[in-house]
């Protein structure tokens, strides 16, 4: 059922068994898991079913440090959340991403990749992907024209990606959720405070508010915050009536270790003969799985670098695109004109034999860094909640890793004799730790309520429960300890399904 909280009587009290805060990929995935159970599920969404500028403004906030996108537009604040504009890129994290790596400070999850395997398989369905198979051999059999530039070896491997249509959770799951007898969806129900008991060992309820000025209370046995990394941190920090530093923040970890994927053009591949390299090509009109080139775990360890992948785009096409950090920062007329130019492009179709030059584009984790963080601003939003402030910080390890990745790729390409690799100028000097102006992220917000068995080094435990608070859980990419290379959506859904199974067992007891 669905209730619009704007039209409820002021100061209503809503009660249920489990309260899910946020109806994006994580929140909706969690709610779907609880459908047709005997439990009353309260699903709270701050926005409605459509974009609303007044609601979206609540996500506005300041950014400092490394240049970043406007916070207001990097997440969508309505039913379905940011799946309303995601591109559908999906792949799994690697085993190494979960391990403690002595060359990556603050790495090491309390769970392993194998712990997520069954949940990845289930998550595939939520985002309408194909079979849970990310082996290049498997996909080469499905698409015989897929030929790797470099075969998997002890240095590089071809990491497969699948593409969601992309599934817009708001459209796809609206009717299912609204018609579910035990799911009680409240729209225009922004949580502005989480109220703990006197000794801050459990949550008693949350306060929701909307721009009509109405305020309500939600009570439940279990609370799951699924508001995305920035808002999860903001909510915990702003809920400081009982705990002055914010909930779950006794050790000053909430908001820290904010991570993004660095997404940046890095090199060029020049071939002696044209090659369509179909295995690596992206076709949004007919999405098929594709590969990106990656460095093996053994070589990452040998060279003490981060995990990243390389995608290929024909150079002639890539050169028409402005860097994403410029493109998406402002919706200027120049950007609109660029899209029109691309749409009207009358250049020849992809040559049958392919291209001789490709741009190599990096997607790489950033090292977890406590100085990269979300805090509360002094400015408040229209509901009276302090706005989020993001200070995004990179380290020299990211740049050294990118350079090393292309040195290794360049050597592998050289061994085959098919061509050569050229680094972009910002990577030429290995002592230069600066970043070029076009450095950007992938709009992937991770970290801020990281997972750890030790409350001193993390906010949630291996089950995503906030340390020290019996019935408060975090869902989504805010629980990530490291960012890996892939876009976060598939993994955050898998992690949420794992949390859901845990809560189902818990609530039975």
């Amino acid at each position: 059922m669905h209730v619009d909280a704007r039209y409820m009587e002021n100061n209503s009290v809503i009660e249920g068994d489990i309260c899910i805060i946020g109806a994006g990929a994580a929140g909706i995935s969690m709610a779907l898991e609880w459908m047709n159970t005997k439990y009353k599920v309260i699903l709270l969404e701050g926005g409605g079913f459509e974009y609303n500028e007044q609601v979206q403004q609540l996500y506005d906030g300041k950014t400092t440090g490394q240049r970043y996108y406007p916070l207001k537009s990097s997440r969508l604040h309505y039913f379905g959340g940011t799946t309303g504009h995601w591109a559908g890129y999906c792949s799994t994290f690697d085993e190494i991403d979960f391990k403690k790596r002595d060359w990556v400070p603050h790495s090491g999850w309390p769970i392993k990749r194998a712990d997520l395997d069954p949940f990845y398989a289930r998550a595939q369905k939520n985002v309408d992907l194909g079979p849970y198979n990310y082996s290049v051999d498997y996909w080469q059999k499905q698409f015989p024209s897929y030929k790797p530039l470099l075969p998997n070896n002890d240095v590089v491997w071809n990491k497969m990606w699948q593409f969601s249509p992309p599934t817009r959770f708001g459209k796809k799951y609206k009717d299912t959720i609204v018609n579910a007898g035990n799911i009680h969806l409240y729209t225009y129900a922004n949580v502005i405070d989480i109220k703990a008991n006197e000794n801050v060992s459990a949550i008693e309820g949350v306060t929701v508010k909307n721009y009509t000025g109405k305020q309500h209370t939600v009570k439940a046995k279990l609370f799951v915050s699924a508001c995305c990394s920035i808002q999860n941190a903001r909510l915990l920090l702003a809920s400081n009536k009982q705990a002055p530093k914010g909930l779950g923040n006794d050790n000053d970890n909430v908001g820290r270790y904010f991570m993004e994927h660095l997404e940046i053009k890095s090199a060029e591949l020049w071939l002696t003969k044209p090659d369509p390299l179909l295995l690596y090509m992206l076709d949004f009109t007919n999405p098929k799985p594709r590969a990106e080139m990656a460095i093996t775990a053994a070589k990452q360890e040998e060279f003490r670098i981060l995990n990243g992948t390389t995608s290929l785009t024909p150079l002639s096409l890539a050169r028409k695109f402005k860097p994403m950090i410029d493109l998406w920062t402002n919706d200027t007329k120049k950007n609109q004109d660029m899209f029109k130019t691309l749409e009207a492009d009358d250049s020849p179709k992809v040559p049958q034999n392919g291209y001789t030059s490709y741009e190599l584009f990096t997607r790489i984790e950033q090292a977890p860094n406590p100085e990269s963080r979300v805090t509360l601003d002094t400015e408040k939003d229209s509901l009276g909640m302090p706005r989020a402030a993001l200070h995004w910080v990179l380290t020299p390890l990211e740049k050294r890793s990118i350079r090393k990745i292309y040195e290794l790729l360049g050597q592998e390409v050289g061994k085959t004799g098919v061509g050569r690799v050229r680094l972009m100028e910002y990577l030429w000097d290995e002592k230069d730790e600066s970043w070029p102006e076009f450095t950007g992220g992938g709009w992937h917000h991770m970290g801020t309520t990281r997972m750890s068995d030790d409350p001193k080094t993390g906010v949630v435990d291996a089950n995503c429960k906030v340390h020290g608070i019996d019935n408060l859980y975090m869902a989504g990419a805010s629980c990530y300890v490291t960012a890996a290379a892939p876009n976060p959506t598939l993994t955050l859904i898998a992690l949420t399904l794992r949390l859901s199974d845990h809560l189902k067992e818990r609530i039975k007891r």
Partner: protein
Amino acid sequence: MERRNFIRLSALGAAGITIPFLQGCNMPVNKALDMPPVLSQIFDAKTMKETGQAYLKQTPGESSKSTLAGLLTQNSSLSQTTPAATVYSFFDNKAKEEFVSSKTVVVNGWILSVTEARQCALFSLNQN
């Protein structure tokens, strides 16, 4: 970069034509010495020259034609009468071997085998 200006030369090599020795040089240097096989299919003359100049700048100890020719032919059986195709094949294999053994260098961003970087350097000197 305008590509493939050197394809003609590559094809020449493949045809097995002996190329005259470099004029004015005492070393038994075949002209194919300054034609790195893969790069000659990718680079235009300007890029080859600039890459060679950059290598010379970062490796000043190798800044003469004779030094470079000596380094390129050391421990090889290349001689004045070696056909260009054989020279070409020799350097093609040598570059691959150097990539295998990580004997590489970054020049103007290009990840090159040391030998092909030297070939570019020789090319740039021969253009002067």
